[in-house]
């Protein structure tokens, strides 16, 4: 037990041994030194006069944003519909693409742990590392601007998310049920349908609903890079400095996100 000797010779309990304290101090010191160094590098080119004027700028922007231009709402229903389409169809496409990847990546269902599994894991990591907006940027450059690029961007980003959570769910299944089905003489396809699928179905459904909720959030801003939806309206309003319209679009995004969260919570509650 770590103890420390006081001046009158008595021993008192302390939280850490001296060695541990020293190690912690060194850790904290290194972290702070690194942070200060990064701060110096990062702010080398910062123009502090702009930073100092930020409160005035903020007051100016918020002054221009109020009141919201309510009559602009009529022109937002189509972008809203596009946003919902991007999120929903993107999620559906991702489910179709991610499910086989998850089965290939799970240790207990992969056909080859040496050859196939690393490839599947790389697909998952690559898809997860790149944000939906970056995928959007790429796909708008390749496929041209529009809703289609948005759907593909959402799908490509979601493969990693759904794939990762699903393969973890597959690895956690109860092997005895699979063994029992196999013992009846079932074919590999039957083992899959009767032994594995029922066990992962609740996880599968809740992962997809969860991702759909995130996708609604992400698809509201995908338009900033040209991939359609509410973000496109936001981008065009920002470009012409139509701040009252920006306020309304932000309110619309906020409402959409809240509603999708409520729907997702309701579905999840029904499943579990």
């Amino acid at each position, binding site marked *: 037990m770590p103890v420390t000797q006081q001046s009158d010779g008595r021993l008192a309990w302390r939280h850490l041994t001296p060695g541990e304290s020293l190690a912690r101090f060194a850790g904290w010191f290194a972290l702070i030194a690194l942070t200060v160094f990064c701060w110096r590098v990062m702010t080398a080119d910062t123009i502090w006069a702009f930073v100092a004027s930020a409160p005035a700028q903020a007051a100016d922007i918020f002054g221009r944003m109020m009141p919201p231009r309510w009559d602009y709402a009529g022109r937002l229903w189509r972008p809203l519909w596009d946003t919902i389409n991007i999120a929903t169809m993107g999620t559906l496409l991702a489910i179709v693409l991610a499910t086989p990847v998850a089965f290939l990546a799970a240790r207990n269902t992969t056909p080859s742990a040496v050859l196939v599994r690393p490839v599947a894991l790389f697909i998952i990591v690559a898809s997860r590392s790149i944000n939906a907006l*970056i995928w959007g940027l790429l796909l708008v450059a390749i496929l*041209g601007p529009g809703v289609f690029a948005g759907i593909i961007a959402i799908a490509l980003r979601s493969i990693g998310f759904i794939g990762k959570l699903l393969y973890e769910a597959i690895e956690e299944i109860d092997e005895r049920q699979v063994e029992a089905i196999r013992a009846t003489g079932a074919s590999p396809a039957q083992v899959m349908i009767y032994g594995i699928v029922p066990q992962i179905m609740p996880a599968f459904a809740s992962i997809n609903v969860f991702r759909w909720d995130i996708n609604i959030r992400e698809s509201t801003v995908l338009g900033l890079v040209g991939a359609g939806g509410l973000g496109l309206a936001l981008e065009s309003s920002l470009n012409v400095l139509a701040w009252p319209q920006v306020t309304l679009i932000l309110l619309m995004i*906020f409402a959409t996100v809240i509603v999708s969260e409520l729907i997702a919570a309701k579905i999840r509650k029904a499943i579990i």
Partner: protein
Amino acid sequence: MSAGAATPAYPRRWSRPPLIPDARLRWAIVLGAILYLIVGTGTVDVNWARVSEGLVRGGRFLAGFLAPDFTSRWSDISTGMIESLTMTVTATVAGIALSVPFGLGAARNIAPAWLYVVCRAVIAFARTFQEIIIAIFFVAMFGFGPFAGFLTLSLSTIGFLGKLLADDIEEADPAQLEAVRATGASWWQVVAYAVSPQVMPRLVGLSLYRFDINFRESAVVGIVGAGGIGATLNTALDRYEYDSAAAILLLIIGIVMVCEYSSGFIRRRVQ
């Protein structure tokens, strides 16, 4: 009453129970989904000519992935990467440092009611909008450059970590809090000896995870001018330099992988 007639016919066939037990609800969902897909795909107009033209470019892009060009734009790439990494480090540290007081304030079991409301409101505000929307506003207020990105990432770190930390503290074992309080410990001592040992391992794990997220987001905020590798990537794509863009993406993927493996390693040691 004959014995044979009373026995119900034993079912000879078995079928799996469906996920949704109510058949009407199940069919309503299936029909609704089909209807939505028909209406939805109808309203998505795809310019197939443009897409087929794009497939050629997609091929070039994939070729770029196989032969990424790190050298010809290296000075741009390294500047962007340094901005992204420094932004990530400073924003993660500042975000954690600020999310601890907000997390403590937003935990109902250790904070007074008025503080709870204030802190929860701040956290909810920080979580409401996507990083990129916050970045647009910070760029407008603080000017172009990584400083705006730093502020954006710090704010969203507060929203993320503050909420999870507060929820964690609220779920902490009340017996330990009670025991430390019973020794006559002050509020600070309760936090240090009863709350922090219970939430620390998870806080470390979440902080490392947030570092990861912040790096990925730092690639995004550059699109709207808040510094980082996103701006470089945007430029590379605008110039149709797919091999440089592929190099940047491979670097992002590589760094995220390194972060994930090292954070997994640290988390296993802490927990």
